């Protein structure tokens, strides 16, 4: 198989002749799961830290159970039970998105919870004593500091989420990993080129992201001091 055809297949899958695939699927899934996980993870984290015992226990239960399961099991749960509930099979990309979104939410909830706990208690007291309501305290004082504090581990989580989107090979979506395995099995003479190209594409993206994260961390440390707040 010609190199440029292989590269095109790895990057966008069988696109003009079929559904999108390849690296594009990984990117779409990881960004959308990150965005959904940001919103829902914030909800879960604030729910877990709230004073209401019912809400707190429910959020804790969701977070602890979903973090204890491998992503592949969560993926299978969604892929197998969503058609059962909806009555008809949904597109594989959508069910994969649901599974990754749940996984991303619970992990981001834990990151946010650690971040909120790391903001100094004095900030709460000072904000409350200036008359801000609880919600205003959270959104105007605590969360901005929390985001600066958790940025390194947040980008680390995004890198790990991007790598974890390769699991959608198990449910039949043609992402970069599946594209590589398919081509390497169809053209066994070019097995090493396939694996090398797959690995290089992942390596470039994840390495660039981790270098960017280090640079952001340094810039924040210079601007705001080591604690980030």
């Amino acid at each position, binding site marked *: 198989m010609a190199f440029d055809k292989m590269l095109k297949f790895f990057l966008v899958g069988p696109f003009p002749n079929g559904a999108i695939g390849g690296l594009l699927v990984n990117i779409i899934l990881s960004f959308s799961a990150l965005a959904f996980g940001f919103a829902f993870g914030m909800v879960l984290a604030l729910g877990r830290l709230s004073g209401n015992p019912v809400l707190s226990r429910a959020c804790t239960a969701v977070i602890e159970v979903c973090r204890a399961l491998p992503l592949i099991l969560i993926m299978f749960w969604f892929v197998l039970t969503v058609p059962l509930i909806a009555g008809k099979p949904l597109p594989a990309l959508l069910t994969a998105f649901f599974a990754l979104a749940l996984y991303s939410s619970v992990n981001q909830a834990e990151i946010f919870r650690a971040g909120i706990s790391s903001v100094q208690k004095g900030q709460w007291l000072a904000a409350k004593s200036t008359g801000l309501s609880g919600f205003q305290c959270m959104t105007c004082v605590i969360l901005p500091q929390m985001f600066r504090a958790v940025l390194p581990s947040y980008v680390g989580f995004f890198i790990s989420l991007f790598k974890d989107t390769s*699991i959608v090979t198990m449910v039949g979506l043609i992402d970069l990993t599946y594209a590589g395995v398919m081509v390497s099995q169809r053209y066994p003479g070019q097995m090493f080129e396939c694996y090398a190209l797959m690995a290089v594409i992942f390596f470039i993206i994840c390495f660039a992201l981790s270098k960017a994260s280090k640079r952001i961390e340094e810039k924040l440390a210079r601007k705001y001091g080591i604690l980030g707040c």
Partner: protein
Amino acid sequence: MNYSFDWEKILTGDNLDLIIGGVGLSISLMVVSSLLALMLGVVFCHMSLSSAKPLRAIASAYVELCRNIPTLIWLYFFYFAFPALLPDSVAAVLNRSSQFNYWAGVVALALTSGGYISEIFRGGVLAVHKEQFSAAYSSGLSHFQTWAFVIWPQALRNCFPALTNRIIHNCLNTSLCMAIGVMELMWVAKHIEAITFRIIETMLVATVFYLAVNFLLQWAARWVERRFLPLRD
């Protein structure tokens, strides 16, 4: 949604044997790959802290490879592509052996987790005060004795939560080995589901197993921390 539960179908006879075999294989994968990952982590941690530049370069290349390439790709690589790298006779033996996908899975998991664990250990060792080294050397302890009795206990105490987190993540990742055909619990659950169409029962069996594993490992981590790594004033 009309779904009738039918627990007998999956918990009796052949299916039960498959499930028990799957549980055993999962546990064996977890134990072997975690131990191997710990050993690799120690080795590469020492390499990354050594004074020889080539060793440091090799260790950092290993860590970057393991952290930037997904575990699934490593699994496929070790199962499909790796035998082609070896001489033909060795490759023929490997491809004929029935245990090959198990060992490919173990090696891939140990390699990826070893990368993370070596970074965790490195962070723990770097957090130990430099004076500990000099104090130990000046008390007459040899290089090995310093590391074994002075530095590593403190390093482990520093990095223990991150280490247990990583080991638990490794144990949950053994479910990925179903991609190369290892008949561990995830594969068995999918297989039984494909035959009997009992979706919720089979997935619940797998869920309960992984929840139990997670719970046990966290309890074991807390026990080890209390028993072996107490803070001394």
